[in-house]
């Protein structure tokens, strides 16, 4: 006599489907609660971390942690422009984008008032930020009061439609296009002409400079060169690292996720254990018979563990569908979820459930099933056949 077939476990679950229905529901709900939250965090992380090109540097004033609070002079920009190692367009123009960041007020479609990130750029910015693409309308013309808005902005703020006039800060701007950047944080920004925005700001011309490195350039050497310049207090950071740093402040959210997942998982595990213990109890005679027939303890144990895993899997399946459904409803009801950014503007995050999130949910459900089923299975396996049969 070797193992009990998988069908034994599966059929037992089916036979008691009504009784296990509540347990399956418990696991499903636990999966939905944690998966929705996890999807939110990974959506936020995706927005933050994915931002930035691997071959770009961001140059800010020393000590600034975001380009909304930095200041950089015209002279410094001229020096940076002609450094060695910077990539250039075919006609020789350095791929360096001088930018001016402001955070004026804008009205949301819901009537609220938020700080919006207005980035003043030259058209070369599209070449330096190569993940940004105009997908509707066109790029703005210089000094024409025109702006292009990111996808996240288009969804959240009033009048952020192509062809509309949008009142931002102190004046009206004309929206001529919408851009996307693969879901990164640029989609929460509005881009306008550098000179228009510098005039609007009435202070230092630039916030910072972004530059694209030529292939094969020693990145660290260039960073050091900028850092050591005695005339201007500047610091250069790889763009990817810059955005990763912003993502670190989302640490609190991860802690919250852990705080959510562990108790919910344990509670669901208790619920599953209850069901399995009852199953063991009601099948005492059956187990005794199996043992008397010669099935080993290990076999019984494995079969019961398998049974609780089957329950967990069914719970996961229901939970996965539920998660997608709830995420869809939330997207519908809330649009983008807003998070505060280092720049005191808003990162608009689209809640999306990724396959990795569901994989984590699968692991979670499996853990619940294992934890919940182990002790009852152990008890089943260690029932003495003679006692079990006596109850018959």
């Amino acid at each position, binding site marked *: 006599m070797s193992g009990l077939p998988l069908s034994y476990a599966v059929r037992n679950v089916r036979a008691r489907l009504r009784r296990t229905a*509540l*347990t399956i*529901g*418990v696991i499903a*709900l*636990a999966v939905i*609660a944690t998966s*929705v*939250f996890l999807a*939110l965090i990974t959506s*936020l992380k995706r927005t933050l971390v994915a931002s930035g090109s691997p071959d770009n540097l961001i140059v800010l*004033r*020393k*000590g*600034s*942690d975001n380009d*909304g*609070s930095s200041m950089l002079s015209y002279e410094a920009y001229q020096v940076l422009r002609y450094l060695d190692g910077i990539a250039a367009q075919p006609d020789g123009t350095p791929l360096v984008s001088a930018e001016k960041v402001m*955070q*004026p*007020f804008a009205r949301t479609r819901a009537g*609220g*008032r*938020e*700080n919006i990130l207005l980035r003043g750029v030259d058209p070369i910015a599209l070449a330096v930020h190569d993940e940004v693409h105009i997908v509707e309308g066109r790029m703005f013309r210089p000094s024409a009061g025109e702006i292009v808005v990111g996808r996240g902005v288009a969804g959240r703020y009033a009048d952020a439609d192509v062809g509309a006039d949008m009142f931002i*800060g*102190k004046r009206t701007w004309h929206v001529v296009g919408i851009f996307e950047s693969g879901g990164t944080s640029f989609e929460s920004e509005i881009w306008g002409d550098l000179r228009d925005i510098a005039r609007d*700001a009435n202070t230092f011309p630039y916030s910072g400079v972004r530059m694209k490195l030529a292939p094969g350039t020693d990145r660290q050497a260039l960073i050091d060169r900028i850092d050591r310049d005695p005339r201007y207090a500047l610091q250069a950071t790889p763009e990817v690292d810059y955005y990763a740093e912003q993502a670190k*402040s989302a*640490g*609190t*959210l991860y*802690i919250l996720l852990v*705080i*959510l997942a562990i*108790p*919910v998982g*344990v*509670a*669901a595990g*208790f*619920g599953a*254990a*209850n*069901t399995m*213990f009852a199953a063991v109890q009601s099948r005492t005679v059956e187990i005794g018979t199996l043992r008397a027939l010669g099935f080993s303890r290990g076999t019984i144990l494995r079969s019961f563990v398998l049974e609780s895993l089957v329950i967990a899997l069914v719970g996961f399946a229901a939970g996965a569908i539920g998660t997608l459904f*709830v995420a869809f409803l*939330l997207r519908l*009801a*809330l*649009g*983008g*979820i*807003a*998070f*505060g*950014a*280092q720049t*005191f503007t*808003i990162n608009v995050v689209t809640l999306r459930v990724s396959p990795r999130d569901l994989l984590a949910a699968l692991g979670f459900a499996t853990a619940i099933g294992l934890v919940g089923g182990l002790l009852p299975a152990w008890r089943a396996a260690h029932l003495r056949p003679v006692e079990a049969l006596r109850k018959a």
Partner: protein
Amino acid sequence: MRFLPLILRNLGRNKLRTGLTGAAIGLAVLLVCFFLTMPAGIDVFLSQIASNVRISVHHKGGLVYQMPFAYVNKIRAVPGVVAADGVVWFGGAYEEAGHVTFPSFAVEPEHVGAVWPDYHIDPAALERFRRFRDGAIVGRQTMEKYGWKIGQEVSLHSTIWPVTLTFRIVGEIPNARSPLFWFQREYLAQAIHEHGWVLSIVGIVWVRIADPALVDGVMNRLDAMFRNSPAETAAETEKSFFASYFGSLQGFVAIILVVTGLVALCVLCIAANTASMAVRERAREIAVLRAIGFGRRLIFGTLVAESMVLATVAGGTGALLTYAFTAAVKLAAGGWSTQLGPLSGFLVSPAIVGQGLLLAVVVGLVSGLAPAYGAAHRPVASVLREVF
């Protein structure tokens, strides 16, 4: 009450199951209470920190635009204005704890007491604040987060001004929800003077009005005063100012509420499962009780009571443990957070504990209803037939 021994004894029948279910309910209620501290954080912030006689005056286009410092005196001259304080954003980062930030402002020290009397800052502290150029007054949330004491020196490096300043903490804002860091405007002015700059601007002017009835009139007057000037102003009540500021968090709060709702539903299912198991196993006994004359309503009542006693005791314990739990979380992650703002205060109030307890009672009630009804109304004869 006379049936309480029977109820308790039934709960003790399967101690493992009662224990597991109770622990699950307790955990779930604890979690729900914990998460409820987050949206409560906004409400409490608005009600405890915002005042209805204080208004903010800032540039109409956004907080990123500055106003001339001269505005402040003009504002003070307006009838109905008791006091005004012009503040400048410092954007300070505390390097020692890893470049963490909290709201830091350069303020006019002599007007702090008059504009924010409801903050109950110790008058002696205010006196020291006036006297010591490098003095700082810090909100309790930040004090506790970094373990600062009055008299301590801390250094903040500004992310927008090219300066790093060392301050001496001379007092605190005795409110555990306040993360603020205030220091002297003059101190900042001196520091940037060394770079050849003059501090002639102000970011926000906080104004205290004599009476709530005068607020609207004063706001209109102020905006009219500065209309058509290079820096047009927008005056608004403090509540409105913070509500806009935190309005963006509503999406996240909605998700928190959805998640806690799911957790509550989850624990309801756990409790219902247990209740139905317990009743199913006792079918014969319940039949015997009904045979000897226990009426349907009585059986129904004792079974529902059984479920409620378990849920209420377990859930009540979980709700009370919220205090200890949030204290632990605050140690790890509390304090001001960029993403979450006031949501990360994690402060428990009796109202939240009450809500947790209510959840426990409802879970006990609802989970017991169906099994109890079934048991009470199943025809006794058919149960006896099946069993005997």
